[in-house]
């Protein structure tokens, strides 16, 4: 049966959490059941949490092979980092 049940990725926001965090994955026949299974598996039914479920096939991941061109921090190009500004006094939330 599990072969026919697609894989879902589960993201949970805890009651006092600010963002959804990837909690794990599970098998379910459809989105409704995936939500219910996620509740049992990942939230222990704590009240006030938010759950997202996403079919795994819908997620596009960056490829490990392209890691270097994708993520290499351009540390030798300091002009790309906005660190040369002096923040004027009185500016808030910056």
């Amino acid at each position, binding site marked *: *049966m*599990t072969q026919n049940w697609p894989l879902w990725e589960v993201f949970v926001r805890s009651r006092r959490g600010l963002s959804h965090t990837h909690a794990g994955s599970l098998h379910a*026949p459809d989105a409704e*059941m995936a939500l*219910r*299974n996620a509740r*049992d*598996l990942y939230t222990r*039914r704590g009240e006030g949490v938010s759950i997202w479920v996403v079919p795994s096939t819908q997620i596009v991941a960056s490829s490990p092979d392209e890691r270097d061109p994708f993520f290499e921090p351009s540390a030798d190009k300091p002009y790309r980092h906005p660190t040369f500004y002096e923040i004027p006094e009185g500016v808030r939330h910056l």
Partner: protein
Amino acid sequence: MSTPVSSTGTGTADVTAAAALALGDDALILSHRLGEWAGHAPVLEEELALANIALDLLGQARVLLSMAGDEDELAYLREERAFRNLQLVEQPNGDFAHTIARQLYFSLYQHLLHTELAAGDGPFAPLAAKAVKETAYHRDHAEQWTLRLGDGTEESRRRMRAALDSLWKYTGELFQPVEGLELDTAALEAAWLAALGDVLERAGLALPEGPRTGAWAAGAGRQGLHTEPFGRMIAEMQHLHRSHPGASW
């Protein structure tokens, strides 16, 4: 084991204990049946859901049986004839559709019952207020699976229909008056039939036909008369306690 209901109390305490025993036995026995699925469910996720429901019910059973006496003594030292649970909840698990049909019939009933008890101010209101959230989840679980099995494949529909039909005769007992519970059983039954009819229609299934009450239907669990599989079930449930009476664990 003698009857656990205190004979010294006033009449009110006695009937409350009797009602607590009936509701507690429902929860205890169904919890045990669902526990039998551990390691055998169709998928891991469903195993978890059934175990979750079983744990909820066991929690309810502990509160209710404690209202009637000592929970361990009541669970492990009573004979079959002293149990007051509905015959519906003692029915064997059968296939998955069978388990879901039993859950559907019972959790619909229990959800309506808890809603009504929670709204009142009787001795069961505090328990019901807590349990109604759990029971809403049990009901949702059973409804979701009824929809999927009824509206799934030919085979799943056939099995779901067979399960609903075979357990139907035990549902009349749900609406017999229970001493100690102030309930409008006629209204409860009407609400149950309406909710059930709605789910079954969405699942592409019809309400089963056949008697639910009267001479051709089953249902005397509340009087201590149980079906044959029940004896084997409690033999397994009580085995350890009876082999080592008085042990603590």
